[in-house]
């Protein structure tokens, strides 16, 4: 029954979409009016990475919404994955069995990953990447300590309290920069400070600042999320969990 209803609907949707697809300007066409305007605007504000310029300057409001979605999901996951009333947290005894080579690899990889992540964040307005991509790398990178078999070390490197702060500071800073720009120039999230020269680290005005705020938020957000799932998987015990 369910499948029949679905197939009937899906058939209709496919017909609708295929007929529509036949009327789209063909793949790879030269019709991109917004592109032309966005590239011009990006050049005007000396942002070498046009995608970053769109995200943080031209359509910054979208990114504010996006960061808030991240914040809401992380808060939501934190609420949902908190130990329930009838559950207890139990610290795993020690590292468990981890091969020495794996452990070394984990310890070795972590700083490298963090440096790469920070670099990706810092150059977001110049080269591909940015706060989001770099933040993901940093937030995941910290968890290599778990691969290294050291949950206590992970807890030290990732004090959840500080990470939660980071996530709030990132989101708050993004919105505050927007309001500051509103006060300074009359337009929310406008690009108010000097723009520097093309391709340099210090260029594109507020883009690197907003980018940095996103980097902080995404890095801490990723860390909180992975941390919450990890904790749930290895520490939280339900009432009928005998192990």
């Amino acid at each position, binding site marked *: 029954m*369910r*499948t029949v209803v*679905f197939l009937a609907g*899906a058939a209709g*949707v*496919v017909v609708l*979409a*295929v007929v529509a*697809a*036949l009327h*789209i300007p*063909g*793949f*790879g*066409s*030269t019709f*991109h009016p*917004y*592109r032309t305007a*966005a*590239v011009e605007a*990006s*050049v005007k504000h000396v942002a*070498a*990475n*046009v*995608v970053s*310029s*769109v*995200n943080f300057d031209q*359509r910054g409001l*979208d*990114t504010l*919404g*996006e960061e808030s*979605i*991240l914040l*809401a*999901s*992380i808060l*939501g*996951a934190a609420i*949902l*994955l908190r130990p*329930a009333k009838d559950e207890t947290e139990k610290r795993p005894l020690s590292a468990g069995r981890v091969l020495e080579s794996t452990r070394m690899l984990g310890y070795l990889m972590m700083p490298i990953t963090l440096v790469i992540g920070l670099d990706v964040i810092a*150059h977001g307005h*110049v*080269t*591909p990447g940015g706060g*989001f991509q770099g933040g993901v790398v940093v937030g995941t990178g910290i968890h290599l300590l778990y691969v290294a078999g050291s949950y206590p070390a992970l807890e030290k490197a990732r004090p959840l309290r500080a990470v939660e702060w980071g996530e709030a500071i990132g989101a708050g800073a993004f919105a505050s920069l927007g309001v500051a720009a509103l006060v300074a120039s009359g337009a929310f999230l406008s690009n108010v400070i000097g723009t520097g020269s*093309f*391709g340099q680290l210090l260029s594109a005005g507020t883009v690197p600042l907003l980018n940095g705020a996103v980097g902080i938020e*995404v890095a801490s*957000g990723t860390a909180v*999320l992975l941390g*919450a*799932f990890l904790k*749930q998987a290895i520490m939280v015990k*339900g009432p009928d969990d005998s192990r």
Partner: protein
Amino acid sequence: MSFYPYLVAVWLLVVGAFGIVRSRNLIHAILCLSVSQSGTYVLLLAVGYQWHAKPPVFGEPATHPTAKVVDPVVQAMTLTDIVVSATVTALLLALATQIHKRHGTLDPDELRQLKG
């Protein structure tokens, strides 16, 4: 060829929905949902593509800002979309974990308390 990317996009959307309909495990359904969403990535990037155009980044290697580039706006939209996908997936996985704790199952056929 001119329409193939759009068809792939629609295919991903529909096949993901199909997966949810047939799913016997909510975690499986959540991943099918993210497959559905990838349909939107493919559609958006296909819409912004232009033959023989470069990525919309003029930094390294330094390119002259007048070079022909693909549409950066759809890329920015897709980036936003990917963040949405990841975070919503995380939220739903957290819900799934709790459902399993409370019901002992993730099979939607056995979760029938919200009927009527």
